[in-house]
């Protein structure tokens, strides 16, 4: 818990000390939108996970077997203490960064069982994940990756249309997130390719390929399925976990 508050404190201090938005804006080239790039399918709407659709992802990982990890990754995996999977520990004993309110990163965000909203607009697709209000901008205006602004939690996503399939490539992600909820690590060299397609107007299928020359010997290929709902995206903030943790501590400390 103390670590958590230090994290918040350091965030506030950094936030007060400098304004980096100007630098970021300078780094983004303004690209005029080519109407020819704006085709494909309409993914607009609120989507919730469809566990019965046959996707390879399950509640806590991208496959039932652990991926083919390098010794570098295996070493980290062995000291990670997840709350899910064969090596699950109690929340009080975990070192899963998400329990300290760090963003889950891409693609792990899809393993958290909350809906997401997709908004499509010229040159850009905005993904709003209910979990912690996380957003991702996927630029479809033909721009390249921004390789000059360092790494971020959710990465830097660009997309293009392969007929009615939206292909999204995400790079430049921080290496302190896990790929799944069972403790599989990755490096800053990870690339995530997502292929979004509609199976029918209410069924969204996402094929996902995770490559990482530092962490994975072979690409981790998987999929996730969603169905459209009439829900609205509600607030769900990780900060609320602090209250919950206090309740859960009472269980462990009960005499």
């Amino acid at each position, binding site marked *: 818990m103390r670590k958590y508050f230090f994290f918040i404190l350091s965030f506030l201090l950094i936030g007060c000390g400098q304004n980096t938005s100007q630098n970021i804006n300078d780094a983004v080239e303004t690209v005029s939108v080519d109407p020819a790039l704006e085709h494909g399918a309409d993914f607009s709407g609120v989507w919730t996970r469809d566990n019965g659709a046959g996707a390879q992802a399950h*509640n*806590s990982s991208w496959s039932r077997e652990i991926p083919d990890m390098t010794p570098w990754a295996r070493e980290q995996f062995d000291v990670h203490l*997840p*709350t*899910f*999977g064969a090596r*699950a*520990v*109690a*929340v*009080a*004993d975990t070192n899963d960064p998400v329990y300290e309110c760090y963003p889950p990163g891409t693609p792990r965000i899809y393993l*958290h*069982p*909350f809906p997401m909203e997709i908004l499509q607009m010229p040159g850009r697709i905005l993904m709003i994940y*209910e979990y912690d209000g996380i957003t991702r901008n996927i630029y479809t205006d033909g721009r390249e990756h921004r390789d000059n602004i360092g790494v971020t939690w959710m990465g830097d996503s660009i997309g293009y249309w392969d007929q009615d399939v939206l292909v999204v490539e995400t790079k430049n992600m921080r290496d302190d997130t896990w790929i799944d909820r069972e403790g599989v690590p990755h490096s800053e060299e990870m690339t995530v390719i997502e292929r979004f397609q509609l199976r029918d107007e209410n069924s969204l299928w996402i094929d996902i390929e995770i490559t990482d020359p530092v962490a994975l010997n072979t690409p981790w290929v998987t999929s996730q399925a969603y169905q459209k709902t009439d*829900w609205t995206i*509600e*607030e*769900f*903030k990780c900060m*609320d*976990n602090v*209250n*919950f943790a206090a*309740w*859960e501590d*009472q*269980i*462990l400390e*009960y005499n």
Partner: protein
Amino acid sequence: MKRVAFVLAVFAFFTLNAHHGAGVYDTTAVIDVTGTVTEFQFRNPHVLIFIDAENEAGQSVNWSGELTSRNRLARQIQENRPQWTNDILEPGDTITLTGNPAGNGSPFLRLIRVETSDGTVLIGPDQSPAEEY
């Protein structure tokens, strides 16, 4: 007023609680606890219900149980069950909580089912999976 029944059971409704994997609860046991609501916290990440229930010695014990998130319950995640709101339970209501007990024997539950005194099931299967033995 009180009925605390332990049973070994394998039950597949655990997706209600996606926050945890293991460790705190004994997921091989399911119990029923009937009592009077003392507090209802309709919030994320887990809705919490507190009840006073008598133990076998006739003493009042405050039990609490966790459900899934406010957001999920408010979306009516199960057919034939009501959509949850912040007044679906109020202090003084008599209810039966069914769930996995804490592994250390403390009065905490990972809830699988909630039933009111008039027999309305607010969440979970029609019948309680806890069977006395």
